[in-house]
């Protein structure tokens, strides 16, 4: 065989008799839809009269969002005692919710940046909505540490500004690193999202019939003309932003995990945290993408552009990252046992069998066991079931952060100072409301901005290949 390719005349005779098997790739766009169909499908979402379901959902979302703002208003006007924080648990739901929401965001960047670098063409259909999800999730996340500082009017102390005594922030603190990581993440994600949207905003502008719509989308589209000289710079900038977002997204949850790992608390002080947090973030984020996209796909009948292949891929990523997270749980236990450190050993035995065992086993069953159902094709094809499993994953990932944050603080070195943390109604309302806040932002996005990246979806259509016939 070694010399088989030396000359073509020595081609094995068998090759003339057999036909090589065709390995078809799953089509990304079903039913052979054309460019105009894609434009119409996506632009109609923005152009049609506001549907009733949207108005109802928006009203509900606003109502739910009010819980956050009433909760925060009550917190600020009354004092931090209204949250369930007391010694020894100084980091309660606020930090749990912060890590939860930041983690949700990570799937958006994974889809828009990492899958772009890996040339995963299926990402195009879900990329825009996932990026929007990232930005809105980071908005929700940012509220919590901001109000967790206690006196929120001193929130500016987080920024590199001198306070009234001329003292600057201390850059050895992982909390300060987090300020830089999360604000950079929010800014870069927004730039990436907006830049990717410019050609599509141009399309909506060109179809606009009313003057206000024309004016609104003209300003946003920046006068995009779609010349190839523009595309050339655009594509390069897009690729570079993808290349910059990839190390960024990995660094953000790494630095979030440093908030814990750099401390000396048993159960937090572990080197596994950065990769484990990043895997968990992607895991929860993909679950959120599916939670949002499956209903939208059904409402707007996007089955031709978000097909079973897309759902399959996302389910498989959830399966893979869920398994990684499960592996990390096991590794934590092994390392705790292997460390010979009695505090570390206790921290983990306490997690699984201590006063918060209920939370630990909710976490394990939602994060490790539920996603294993995605091994089965029948499950991946049953979208109601997929949606429900994704809800379980979201719940499980919230509990993961709860278990990490609370169990380690509630029972650390000194048994005499142990305690049991429970949230107050203000904690619960504030967190509950963020789902409304997120939904308000996401519904506005669905209504006013292109839900699918039209240009990118057209680009992966078979008729976009200049050498096709």
């Amino acid at each position, binding site marked *: 065989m070694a010399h088989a390719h030396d000359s073509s005349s020595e081609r094995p005779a068998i090759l003339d008799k057999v036909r090589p098997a065709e390995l078809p790739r799953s089509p990304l766009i079903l039913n052979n839809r054309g460019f105009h169909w894609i434009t119409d499908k996506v632009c109609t979402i923005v152009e049609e009269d506001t549907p009733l379901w949207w108005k109802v959902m928006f009203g509900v979302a606003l109502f739910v969002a009010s819980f956050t703002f009433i909760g925060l208003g009550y917190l600020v006007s009354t004092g931090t005692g209204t949250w369930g924080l007391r010694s020894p648990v100084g980091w309660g739901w606020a930090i749990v919710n912060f890590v939860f929401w930041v983690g949700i965001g990570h799937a958006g960047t994974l889809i828009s940046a990492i899958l772009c670098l890996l040339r995963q063409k299926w990402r195009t259909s879900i990329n825009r909505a996932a990026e929007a999800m990232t930005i809105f999730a980071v908005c929700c996340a940012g509220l919590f540490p901001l109000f967790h500082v206690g006196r929120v009017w001193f929130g500016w102390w987080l920024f590199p500004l001198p306070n009234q005594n001329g003292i600057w922030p201390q850059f050895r603190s992982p909390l300060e690193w987090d300020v830089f990581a999360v604000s*950079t993440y929010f800014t870069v994600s927004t730039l990436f999202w907006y830049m990717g949207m410019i050609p599509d905003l141009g*399309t909506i502008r060109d179809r606009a019939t009313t003057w206000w719509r024309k004016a609104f989308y003209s300003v946003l589209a920046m006068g995009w003309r779609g010349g190839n000289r523009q*595309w*050339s*710079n655009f594509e390069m900038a897009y690729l570079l932003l993808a290349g910059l977002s990839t190390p960024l997204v990995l660094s953000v949850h790494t630095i979030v995990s440093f908030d814990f790992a750099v401390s000396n608390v048993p159960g937090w002080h572990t080197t596994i945290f950065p990769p484990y947090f990043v895997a968990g973030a992607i895991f929860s984020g993909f679950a959120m993408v599916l939670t949002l996209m499956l209903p939208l796909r059904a409402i707007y009948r996007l089955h031709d552009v978000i097909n079973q292949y897309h759902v399959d891929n996302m389910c498989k990523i959830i399966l893979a990252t869920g398994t990684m997270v499960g592996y990390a749980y096991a590794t934590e236990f092994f390392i705790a046992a292997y460390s010979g450190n009695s505090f570390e050993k206790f921290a983990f035995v306490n997690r699984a069998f201590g006063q918060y065992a209920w939370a630990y086993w909710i976490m394990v069953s939602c994060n490790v066991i539920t996603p294993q159902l995605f091994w089965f094709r029948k499950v991946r094809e049953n979208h109601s079931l997929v949606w429900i499993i994704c809800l379980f994953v979201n719940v499980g990932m919230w509990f993961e952060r709860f278990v990490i944050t609370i169990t380690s603080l509630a029972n650390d070195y000194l048994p005499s100072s142990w305690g049991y943390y429970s949230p107050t109604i203000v904690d619960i309302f504030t967190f509950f409301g963020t789902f409304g806040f997120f939904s308000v932002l996401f519904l506005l996005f669905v209504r006013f901005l292109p839900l699918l990246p039209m240009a990118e979806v057209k680009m992966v259509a078979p008729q976009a290949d200049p050498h096709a016939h």
Partner: protein
Amino acid sequence: MNERNERIHGVACTFRKVSDVFHAAEKVRDAGWKNWDVHTPFPIHGMDQAMGLPRSPVPRLTLLGGVTGFITGCLLTWYMNSYDYPLIVGGKPYWSVIFPFPVLYECTILFAAFGTFFGQFIFNRLPRHNHPLFDLPNFARVSDDTFMIVLEARDPRFHLDESRNFLQSLGGQEITVIRD
């Protein structure tokens, strides 16, 4: 309307298929045109080569942004924790490149992203809302499913009738004159 009295921006012609506009672009390139463009609803793979475009200069601003960001991060942390108000933490040096590294890392990415984002706008000469192309009635379809080659009047090869015939020979469909 007398064509001579009006300033002409160029001539445009539309194509319906990707392969048609792609091969037409190769011919325009081979004819030696410099001021022309292919307007498409999405980036066509290989069109840069078909047009003979050089590599995009955006990465230069990305690099500039990244280097600026790293230096800014260094100066920021050094000035704040070591120069203006030195903080003694654990008897360690006032400043080193190690402890604020996450900050330097994020500043590098932030400024590189700014360089890339604004670089795209700078090199694309955007925002610009008053381009003569927007007055073409069939230009709106270019962001949907139509492809358009525009030969600009400022190219030395431009001659209204000859350019029009040239576009006709490339297989263009609707040929229109763009006025400034």
